[in-house]
């Protein structure tokens, strides 16, 4: 890889760099803080075109619950600014990184249960394209059906279509209060059944996370002080009947529980996969893992059918497990993505092509005919 990244200072500069590359035939790869770059390795000798200097133009329209954030600003910085008006961009991936990277990877965290992913919150975008132009789509109002929704097309596009230079999002008010119920279970079935019970109309948690193989659930309530307390007590009462132990945590203790949860997979070496299936297919996933001859650890959106899975051990065994999961996910209308994995591992675990891969490639060809940018993610 080329040593020094190109760091445009403006969107126009970025577009000019992309256009220049299109003319000279150079390969470029959009980058932010480098938080998730390894999730989609680029087999080409591509030079990074980074967004870290694109930090101007932050606009907070507090009364409209909307903000425009430059791509190079970190999520942490954006949220510390938004907090001044009691609001936030409600995304909580384990490692935050830049806004541009967050959009490009569509990454999210436990609060996805309530707030969704970047594609659910984005209302407008500005991107630099390889034809040298800076284009905008959407706007700064939440409700808007004028024209194609290119903002969402760029969410999760991994830099394959252009460089995101800024994005506008719908925000959420910061919750007045938060508390979390931590419950320990005997096995996956008990934990998942309990998760389904607490994520119902009388409780509405903002997160229901599963830790496995500890068989622990973290159920978070974020609303008014009184309601959060009542709902946590309600959840606790419901879980008592099913769990080995139940506790309600608040304040610094709660913060610690969530910090540990965010870090529990990040600190492990090995292979990181995302497995997505229909919610009811989650429990058999754990049955598959219990037979595996590798060390494994899961952080999962228990009621959404999304599991992040860290695998450690013998490579051949990991390949067997990953292939088995791929097959299982496919049978349950889902799929597997390899996030952290060596190239050899990626080669050994073939993932099925998307049925609409041809359309994805056609879009790629239109946006980036000179193939300056990386290929379409998972467009196999």
């Amino acid at each position: 890889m080329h040593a020094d990244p190109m760091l445009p200072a403006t969107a126009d500069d970025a577009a000019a760099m992309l256009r220049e590359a299109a003319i000279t035939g150079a390969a470029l790869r959009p980058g932010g803080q480098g938080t998730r770059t390894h999730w989609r390795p680029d087999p080409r000798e591509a030079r990074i075109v980074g967004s870290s200097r694109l930090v101007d133009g932050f606009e907070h329209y507090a009364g409209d619950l909307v903000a425009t954030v430059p791509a190079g600003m970190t999520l942490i910085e954006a949220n510390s600014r938004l907090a001044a008006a009691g609001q936030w961009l409600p995304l909580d991936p384990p490692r935050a990184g830049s806004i541009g990277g967050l959009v490009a990877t569509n990454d999210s965290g436990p609060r996805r249960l309530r707030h969704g992913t970047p594609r659910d919150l984005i209302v407008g975008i500005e991107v630099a394209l390889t034809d040298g132009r800076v284009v905008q789509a959407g706007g700064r109002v939440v409700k808007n059906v004028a024209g194609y929704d290119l903002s969402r097309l760029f969410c999760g596009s991994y830099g394959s279509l252009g460089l995101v230079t800024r994005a506008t999002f719908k925000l959420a008010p910061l919750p007045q209060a938060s508390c979390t119920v931590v419950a320990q279970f005997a096995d996956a079935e008990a934990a998942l059944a309990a998760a389904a019970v607490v994520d119902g109309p009388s409780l509405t948690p903002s997160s229901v996370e599963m830790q496995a193989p500890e068989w622990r659930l973290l159920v978070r309530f974020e609303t008014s002080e009184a309601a959060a307390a009542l709902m946590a007590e309600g959840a606790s009462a419901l879980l008592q009947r099913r769990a080995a132990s139940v506790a309600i945590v608040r304040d610094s203790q709660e913060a610690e529980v969530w910090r540990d949860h965010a870090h529990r997979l990040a600190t492990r070496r090995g292979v990181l996969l995302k497995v997505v299936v229909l919610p009811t297919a989650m429990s058999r996933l754990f049955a598959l893992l219990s037979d595996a001859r590798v060390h494994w650890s899961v952080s999962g959106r228990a009621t959404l059918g999304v599991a992040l899975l860290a695998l450690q051990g013998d490579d051949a065994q990991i390949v067997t497990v990953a292939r088995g999961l791929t097959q299982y996910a496919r049978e349950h209308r889902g799929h597997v993505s390899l996030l952290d994995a060596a190239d050899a591992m990626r080669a050994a675990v073939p993932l099925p092509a998307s049925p609409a891969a041809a359309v994805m490639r056609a879009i790629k060809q239109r946006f980036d005919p000179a193939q300056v940018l990386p290929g379409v993610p998972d467009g196999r």
Partner: protein
Amino acid sequence: MAPLTPSFLDQLRRAAPGGVIDDAVERLTYESDALVHLRAVPGAVVLPSSAAEVQAVVRLCHAHGVPFVARGHGTGLSGGALPHPEGVLIGLARLNRILDVDIANLRVSVEPGVTNLDITRRVAPFGCYYAPDPSSQSVCSIGGNIAENSGGAHCLKYGFTVHHVLEVDVVLPDGTATTIGSAALDSPGLDLLGVFIGSEGTLGVVTRATLRLLRRPEAVLTLLAGFDSIDTAGDAVSSIIRHGIVPAAVEMMDRLTIDAAEAAVQPNFPTTAAVLIVELDGPDVEVTDLFSTVEAVCRRAGAVTVEVARDPAQRDRIWKGRKAAFAAMGRISPNYYVQDGVVPRTKLSEVLGRIRDLEARSGLRIGNVFHAGDGNLHPLICYDGTVAGQAEHAEQVASEILQYCIDAGGAITGEHGVGADKKAYMSKMFAPADLDAMQLVRCAFDPSGLSNPGKLFPTPRLCGEVPGPYRAHPAERAGLAERF
């Protein structure tokens, strides 16, 4: 372009046996959607009975270079389903089956001709519902909702169609059938669903959709407050949001529309300058707690009257008044023009001031009903079609209001779509480069430009071919020419 040939029509009959309507009088029924002033008699109408027939029809159209327009139940308000006079109108009303209901996974799979409300009716016994609730939900189709990215009164909290569709089977404009998205979340690759939803029938035809269901909220509380001005009602909305509360719905009506609704359905609204409807839903403990704040905020902001609906009958009466507002205008004006524009919520008061000035200047009465939570305005411009020139005048007034929305940093449509009606305004809201980028998507899906042509884009464009890697022309390299 030539009219459809007898040979083409024969093949069309074979593609969808028993589904072709070529009788001139019957075809007239399809000449418009709910935007009735834009009309065109379609070259042929076909009502396929299966996804396979839809595919056969589109393939045939593609093979012969014949344009086609998909139509749901014809309730659109932007002429999105306006037929092509020399093309085929594909009516999807016969694809109206609910194919699969999976309560455990909160998923439902339906054909595009299923009516929005029928989904909720089907899953209601399980305590579930389908969230997007456009005013036309008892008659509009899911296929149409997907084409327009429909919202509804409750989208402030629950989002739009794009937040509730997980997977669609589509027939692409070249006749290829494919699936985009997946029933499980996070479908790999580009978010094609994100761009397909709201593409107004220009990227293909949906033959099946898998939708996300929600559990019915435990509690719903609705408040109806009367204010002596629209501005004070607007202040109340700002204050609710400042208190960190995101209501399920916030609707506002002005005096003219209150009077019209009263005449039509007698909802017994207060006779104030404005009414605000605020609805909270969620767990009982949360709604009860937050609702007291909302009530106090409304009173502090200067509400003259506050009524709280605590049972479904009271709530239905309030919503009946709100939902009847459009049709009720017919009681007080021979004709009216419905506009759909969006402004940042904080600019509501400024833009409504401009609309009031315009009303005085134009001599046409303008009623205002709007989704106050998200700044989506629906000005209703009253006119008398029997007075020469008044319809055109109303249209000019409606057009000027859109300009106010653009000036305020808003959008030319919040939920009705661009369609045939507003395509000329696209270039007021977007720069040429922005429109070109949209055109890239159009060309990727439909290089022949046969799927609902003449809609959404301000000017018709052809798609150049892009065979293989890009090679810069010497003139481009010298900076003398640009390629699209």
